[in-house]
C-alpha cells in the first residue's frame, strides 16, 4: 500500500496528466511497431531505418513535429468552428475510453460499475466528430466518407455490444476490474492455476468483438470511410498539420483502447497467475501491455492483408451474420450460466 495521502484534486490532476500522456504514447507505439515496422516487413521492405539511430524509432515523433509546424489550412467554404472542433471530438472519445481500463489492482483512473458499457458508449462518440469533419469540410469526398463512416459505425455498434454481453453474463458484472477479478479467480475444470481467461469460453464473442472493433476503427477490410483509392482520404481529406495529427492519434489510440478492452475482457487483462497485491500493481501494466500488443498484432495483421469490402457487403455482414451469431452466443451463454 502506498502510505501517503494526497488530496483528491492532486490525484485527479495526476490521473488526467497520465491519461493525456498515455493516449499519444500508445498511438506512437502502435504506429511505430505495426504501421512502420510490421507492415514493412510483411511487404518485404525495411521501413524507416535512419531517424533516431535504432531502426528508425524516432520517425513518428519527427513526423509529429513536422505536422505541428505545418500551416493550418482551412478551405474557404468550410464551416470554420465545426471544422476546427471535429478532430478534438474524435480524440476526446479516445481519451474517455482509457479512463476505465485497469492496468493493475489499483491502477485505474475510475473503476466505474458500468465500466464496459461506458467504454463502448464513449468510443462511439467519435462518429460525431467524423460526421462533423465530413460535413464541415465542404468537400464531396469528405461528405461521402463521413456518411459511410456514420452508417458503418452505427451498424457495427450492435455486434460490438452484443459480443461483450456474453462476457458480462459470465462475469456477472460490467465493472472491468470485476471482469478481470472473475477471470483471475476462475477455474478451468476445477483447476485454478491459471485462472480462466474468457477467450476459452467466449471465443465466438472474441472473434465478433475483433471483427466489430476492426469496423469501428475503420481499418481494412472495413475502411470504406477513408478508402484511399476511392475517396482519397474520406472525411480527413481536407485536414492538414496539427488537426490531421489529432485524427492520427485518435485512430491509433482507439486501436490501442479496443485492444486493451479485448485483452481485459477475453485474455484476463492485467492479471498474472499467482501474483497478487502490490506486485500485481508493478507487473500488471507490463502484462496488460504484452496482451494488448498480441491483440493489436491480430488487428493489424488483418489490416495489412485484406482488401476492403463494399458498403452494401459490409452492412450485409453485420446484419446477416454478426448480429445473429452474437444473439445465439448470448443465448447459449445464458443457458449454460443458469445450468452450471
Amino acid at each position: 500500500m502506498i502510505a501517503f495521502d494526497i488530496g483528491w484534486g492532486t490525484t485527479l490532476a495526476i490521473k488526467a496528466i497520465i491519461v493525456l500522456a498515455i493516449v499519444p504514447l500508445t498511438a506512437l507505439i502502435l504506429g511505430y511497431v505495426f504501421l512502420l515496422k510490421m507492415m514493412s516487413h510483411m511487404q518485404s521492405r525495411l521501413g524507416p531505418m535512419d531517424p533516431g539511430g535504432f531502426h528508425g524509432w524516432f520517425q513518428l515523433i519527427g513526423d509529429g513535429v513536422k505536422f505541428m509546424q505545418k500551416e493550418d489550412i482551412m478551405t474557404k467554404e468550410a464551416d470554420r468552428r465545426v471544422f476546427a472542433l471535429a478532430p478534438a471530438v474524435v480524440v476526446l472519445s479516445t481519451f474517455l475510453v482509457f479512463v476505465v481500463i485497469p492496468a493493475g489492482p489499483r491502477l485505474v483512473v475510475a473503476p466505474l460499475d458500468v465500466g464496459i458499457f461506458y467504454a463502448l458508449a464513449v468510443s462511439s462518440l467519435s462518429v460525431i466528430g467524423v460526421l462533423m469533419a465530413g460535413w464541415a469540410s465542404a468537400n464531396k469526398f469528405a461528405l461521402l466518407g463521413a456518411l459511410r463512416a456514420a452508417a458503418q459505425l452505427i451498424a457495427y455498434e450492435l455486434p460490438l455490444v452484443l459480443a461483450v454481453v456474453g462476457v458480462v453474463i459470465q462475469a456477472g458484472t460490467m465493472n472491468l476490474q470485476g471482469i478481470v477479478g472473475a477471470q483471475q479467480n476462475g477455474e478451468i475444470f476445477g483447476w485454478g492455476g491459471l485462472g480462466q481467461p474468457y477467450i476459452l469460453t467466449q471465443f465466438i464473442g472474441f472473434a465478433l468483438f475483433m471483427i466489430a472493433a476492426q469496423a469501428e476503427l475503420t481499418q481494412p477490410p472495413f475502411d470504406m470511410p477513408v478508402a484511399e483509392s476511392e475517396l482519397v482520404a474520406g472525411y480527413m481529406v481536407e485536414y492538414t498539420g496539427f488537426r490531421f495529427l489529432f485524427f492520427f492519434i485518435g485512430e491509433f489510440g482507439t486501436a490501442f483502447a479496443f485492444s486493451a478492452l479485448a485483452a481485459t475482457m477475453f485474455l484476463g487483462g492485467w492479471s498474472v497467475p499467482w501474483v497478487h497485491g502490490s506486485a500485481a500493481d508493478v507487473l500488471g501494466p507490463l502484462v496488460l501491455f504484452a496482451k494488448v500488443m498480441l491483440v493489436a498484432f491480430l488487428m493489424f495483421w488483418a489490416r495489412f492483408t485484406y482488401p476492403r469490402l463494399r458498403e452494401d457487403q459490409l452492412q450485409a455482414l453485420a446484419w446477416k451474420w454478426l448480429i445473429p451469431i452474437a444473439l445465439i452466443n448470448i443465448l447459449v451463454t445464458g443457458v449454460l450460466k443458469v445450468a452450471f
Partner: protein
Amino acid sequence: MTTGTELPPPGQLPEVHVDPSMLRQLAESQVNVELDTGDMILNLGPQHPATHGTLRLVVRLDGERVIAADPVIGYMHRGYEKLTEFRTYPQITTLINRIDWLSSFANEVPFISGAEMLMGIEAPPRAQYIRTALTELSRIATFLLFLGEMGLQVGAITPAFYGFRDREYVLNLIEGVTGGRFHPNFNRIGGLKDDLPWGWYSECRSTMAKVLASCDEFENLVVGNPIFEQRTRSIGIIPAELGAAYGVSGSNIRASGVDWDLRRDGKPYLPYNELDWKVWTHPDGDSFARYWVRLQETRESARMVLQLLQQMPAGPVMAKVPRIIKVPEGEVWVNTENPLGEMGYYIVSKGATGPFRVKIRSASFSNVSILPWMLRGVYVPDIITILASLYFILGDIDR
C-alpha cells in the same frame, strides 16, 4: 455468370450485332454536366489516386450509385502523331517508347517492323528471338504491376508491394540487355542495337522461376481471397459483342471469352508460332475474369521466355541496312498484341528519312471508351474496381 452471347470460333472476333437496348442505354449515359441538378456530381480526377495519372471521370451520383459517368481524356496529350512527321525513323522510337510507358519495348516492335516491311528488310532470326523475349518480359513487368495494383485498388496494400518487387527483377533483366529500365530504345531498323550480355540466360531463368512463384503467391493472396472475389465477381461485365464493337482488345476481350490473340491470329510479326503456348480466356467477362486472365498470361509469358532461351538461334543481331535510312514510298499497317491490347501503326512514307504521316492505334484509348456503358448503375467502389481491372495507361490513351 456468362456473357450470354454466342462466342465465335478461336481466332476470330465476334460479329457485331449490338442489341438495340444497349444502344439506348448508351445514349442515355451521355452526361450533360451543365443542365442537371439534384444528383451529386463527383469529379474523379484528373488528380485522383485511382486514375493512374490524369484520367478525369465526371460521375453523376445518386447516393453512392452511379447514374452516369463521362470520362474526360486529353490531359496528357503530347501530339506524338504530329511529332513523328518531323523526326527520322530512328528518332521516332524514342517517342513511341513513351506511349505505353510500362511496356515500352513492346511499343517499338510494331513501328520498327512496319518500317522494315516498307524497306523490304528482315531482321536476322536471333534479333527476332531477342525481340520476342524482351516483348514478353515487358508484358510480364506490366502485368506484375497490374496484379499488385489491382489489390491496392480494392483496398489491400500488401500485394502492391509484391507486384513492384517482382517487377523490379524483370526490369533488371531488361536493363541488363538494353541499358534502359523504362525506355529501352533498343530496336533498330534491321535488328537490334546489341546482342545479349554475358550471363543473361542464367539470370533470366532464375528470374522466370521467381515470376512463376510470385504468380502462385498472387493466386493465393488475391484470387483466393473471398473479399477480393466478392468485390470483383460480376462487377463490370463486358459482353463479348459489345466489347468487340467498342474495339476493346487484349486481355480485356479475352476475359469476355473471345479467343483472339494477335500473336497467334494476326499477321505474323515475331516467331510466336515456333513456341508452344496457349491463349487464355475466361467466359465471365467481369473484373475477376480480367484479373484471372492476366495472371495466367503472366505465367504463359514466363514459360514463353524460357522456351525462347532454349531455342535461341546463333548469328548476327543486325541485318545489312544503309547508313542513312530512307524508307521507300508506300503505306503499311502493322498491329501487334501488346500488354494492354492491340497496338497498331499505319505508316505512310513518301520516300524521305521520316514518315509522311503515322496513325497510332493504342489499346487503352479503345478500352476506356466502353467506360460510360460499364459504369452505369454501379457503386462508387465498383468504379475503382472497374478502372483498375480495365488496366489502362494514360500515355496510351492520350498519346
